[in-house]
């Protein structure tokens, strides 16, 4: 496996691009998949977004300037692709993004690729009530286990701002879980 700097150089060179890209996919597919999955909930949607993400990375690799780390840039693309996907899906179905997310959580009950219990479903319901950006911050911190410093680079937001948003999200989720019956 190439170190990130060499990988970027190989990706930006015609002769070595395709092989370097294969390495990139091998290295990052799982981390990106789970980040996306935690945002879109459904496996098929996550699969689509993951592919879109890598295609976007391939198409835009020449314009990657190295102002951030490569994996930071990729996480950012993945987050944007997931949000774009959800917005488009909501628009196609003529519903709000909030209703789309509620529907996605409701479908977990019969989803063959969800083997969580009622409390885990309830937890997803709570997350779905958060504003979009707060959901993103919460899921990336809690499930993907990014540090606040990493998140700060990915989301281009201050560490202080992220911590504040995250802790508010935790409070809201706790309140939701306490005040709503598990169904």
């Amino acid at each position: 496996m190439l170190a990130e700097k060499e990988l970027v150089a190989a990706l930006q060179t015609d002769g070595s691009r395709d092989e370097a890209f294969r390495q990139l996919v091998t290295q990052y597919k799982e981390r990106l998949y789970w980040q996306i999955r935690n945002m879109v909930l459904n496996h098929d949607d996550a699969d689509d977004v993951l592919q879109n993400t890598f295609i976007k990375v391939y198409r835009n690799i020449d314009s990657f300037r190295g102002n951030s780390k490569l994996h930071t840039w990729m996480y950012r693309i993945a987050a944007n692709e997931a949000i774009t996907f959800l917005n488009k899906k909501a628009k196609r179905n003529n519903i709000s993004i909030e209703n789309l997310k509620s529907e996605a959580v409701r479908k977990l009950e019969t989803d063959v690729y969800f083997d969580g219990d009622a409390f885990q479903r309830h937890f997803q319901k709570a997350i779905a009530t958060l504003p979009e950006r707060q959901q993103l911050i919460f899921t990336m911190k809690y499930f993907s286990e990014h540090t606040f410093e990493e998140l700060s680079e990915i989301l281009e937001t201050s560490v202080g701002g992220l911590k504040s948003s995250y802790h508010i999200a935790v409070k809201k989720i706790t309140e939701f879980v306490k005040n709503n019956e598990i169904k």
Partner: protein
Amino acid sequence: MSKKKHIPKFEVPQDYFSNFEDQLFARLEEEQFPATPGFRIPNGYFDGVESKIIKKVLADKKHKTIPLFQRNYTKYAVAIAACLVIAISIYNRNDISEQTINNIQLSKIDSYIDDGNLEMDLYELTHYLNDLGDLDLNLNDATISNTAIEEYLMEHAEGDFWMDIGVD
């Protein structure tokens, strides 16, 4: 003889103590949350997805349309045209004539876009804007900086924007 009190000269981040309680209680609340989201994946998914992605990327490369114009300046002209479309929608102008915009052959750009040759997405467009540097577009009395356009793109990238420039 009295003992000198040793006070260590440590410092703490700003607002550390005022934020400490919030952070501590948030951590305690998190202890009640499920450790995993409960998602699973089809057997062999990660083995298969890699070849799917590579296939798609290579197919994408093969079907990339040969541009009408070989020189890179066309992409900049298209970027400028897209910015003008946004500017028009911001300032509610529908009657642009070629006399008001110098040196941009709009009909050629329109044909280029209509023929599906504009495979540019938000990232590519904003990168072209970065390449243009500090370009201020003057639309009669209105001046729009490329920073304002970039922010507008970031906020309104979906829906109308994509329909306006014919990108799927």
